[in-house]
């Protein structure tokens, strides 16, 4: 399966994915509100076109957007960012983004191929994002709801101090306002440039979730493609409900690492949402188009 070959460690290194599959399945935000794929795009009189990486179906970006970035032909769920999810889930797309003033810094003076500080500055310039997660409050069919949603295009959605702190503040806000919380996961794993500080975010967020438990406030973990490493080894798997989009790759170790370890090809569908559901780690899989309605029902159920 071609997509199993995808190498999201390249994204964690702050680079775009190496394989054609990962490039074509990803929408990049150039400026606010304008989306384009990183490849397989062409300019035509009808606007931008995009090719589905799964079935090669070609549709206009406008058409795709109306379909919530789900392939009209094969139901492939394209990767989207926090802005798109907020638009899809919150009533009239209205929401209030919080904690944007918390920013990453190169405390360790970490230099790989570039200094971490330079990488951050380049990413801030290239995207209109301040870090790999955004927290927003809004309403879902009139019910208050908080979403913390990762953005894969910010250093592979990597888990660093800022993600940990923004989620922690989201938990405090949820407790204070007695409002259910959902984290939308989309990350290759840890932000290595923050070394042990990155690892400790697993403990930090889990501790905060424990406070949420004591306050009896529902927490939903929504896993989308991809959700790996420290994400699945902490809050990604700690939801009162763990749910996922169809076909999402979810796991602890990445497929490339597993393949190198066992020196065998991985079976079809390995580490996909359907595989996790079968092995008992998900409550259900939900199509993007049915997501809002299902969340709305859940909020009613938790409340009633």
């Amino acid at each position, binding site marked *: 399966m071609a997509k199993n070959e995808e190498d999201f460690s390249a994204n964690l290194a702050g680079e775009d994915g190496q394989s054609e599959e990962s490039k074509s399945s990803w929408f990049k935000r150039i400026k606010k509100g304008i989306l384009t794929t990183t490849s397989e795009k062409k300019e035509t009189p009808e606007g931008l076109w995009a090719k589905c990486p799964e079935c090669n179906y070609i549709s206009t970006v406008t058409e795709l957007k109306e379909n919530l970035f789900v392939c009209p032909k094969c139901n492939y769920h394209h990767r989207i960012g926090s802005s798109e999810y907020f638009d899809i889930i919150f009533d009239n797309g209205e929401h209030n983004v919080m904690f944007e003033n918390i920013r990453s810094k190169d405390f360790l003076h970490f230099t790989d191929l570039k200094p971490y500080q330079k990488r951050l500055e380049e990413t801030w310039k290239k995207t209109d994002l301040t870090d790999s997660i955004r927290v927003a409050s809004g309403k879902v069919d009139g019910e208050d709801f908080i979403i913390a949603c990762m953005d894969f295009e910010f250093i592979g959605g990597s888990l660093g101090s800022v993600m940990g702190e923004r989620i922690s503040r989201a938990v405090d806000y949820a407790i204070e306002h007695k409002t259910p919380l959902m984290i939308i996961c989309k990350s290759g794993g840890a932000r290595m440039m923050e*070394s042990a500080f990155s690892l400790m975010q697993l403990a930090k967020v889990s501790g905060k979730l424990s406070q949420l438990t004591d306050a009896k406030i529902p927490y939903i973990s929504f896993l989308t493609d991809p959700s790996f490493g420290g994400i699945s080894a902490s809050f990604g798997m700690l939801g009162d409900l763990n749910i996922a989009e169809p076909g999402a790759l979810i796991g602890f170790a990445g497929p490339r690492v597993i393949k190198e370890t066992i020196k065998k090809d991985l079976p079809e569908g390995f580490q996909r949402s359907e595989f996790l559901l079968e092995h008992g780690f998900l409550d259900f899989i939900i199509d993007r188009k049915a997501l809002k309605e299902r969340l709305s029902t859940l909020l009613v159920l938790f409340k009633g």
Partner: protein
Amino acid sequence: MPDNKNRQFLDFEKPVKEIFDEIEKLKQTEEKTKVDLSDSIKKLEDQVIEKRKNITSNLTAWQKVQLSRHPDRPYTLKYIQKMTTNFVELFGDRNVKDDKAIVGGFAQIEGETVMLIGHQKGINTKMRQLRNFGMANPEGYRKALRLMKLAEKFNKPIVTLIDTPGAYPGMEAEERGQGEAIARNIYEMMRLKVPVICVIIGEGASGGALGIGVGDRIFMLENSWYTVISPENCSSILWRSWEMKEKAAEELKLTSDYMHKFGLVDTIVPEPLGGAHWNYDEAANNLKNQIIATLRELEQIPAEDRINQRIEKFSKMGFWDEVAS
């Protein structure tokens, strides 16, 4: 502890090996000629101590990583044997199997019953296979949690000993929920009503380490390391090459002195000159004293306060700027 003649030496330990070889030669000469050479031998033995001291004080980050993986280094069961009495090992996760990469059981430290849990590496080729090089599967983490809950039920403190190159990245591990198992442990350890001390005794790699690494106090042995990824894997991901592991080790600032400076670990436990492999008794005794002192301190704190302090401790970890919005 290996006899001196069976010791294994890392590259940077070679100067010590040379003196050892000289001592061995003198001893053989003494045997043959029946001439007393004890003065010369004594001098050389003093030199060994001096060399061990030199080695410890000038290590690079990568050399410390190598030291943490020294083939003669004591592992969890060795520390348990040296620090405790009445150890009863307990097996199994009550679900799938017994994971040999994590061991645990009740024992007494100076008469007090404690639950000890740790990663276990093998001491020879066959045992290394059996112990899966200290890389646990989900069953290992679930066994650890079962034992922690058992300790909590009977109000016994918990000590975990961490020594792993990472959780096992295998197919079955994924099928049985490696991520979930580690996540569950981190979450549940945060809420344990009994005192918890975690000690990095060798390698502390990533979620595989943190899966038994949440506690009221975190210790690191002097020559251990602890971070989010091994230097080798970090090199392969960030530098796209396996050749940059030494640089990665430097950049990751993964040694005990940095980790203590950053406030991510509470205490550095000193090792014998040259590393824990030079003297198991001394290494275990240093750790035991630190555990006893810390348990006395933790046992004074009411359980609920201890849990809140534990959550608070980890909540503070991280670095960020707050810009004017």
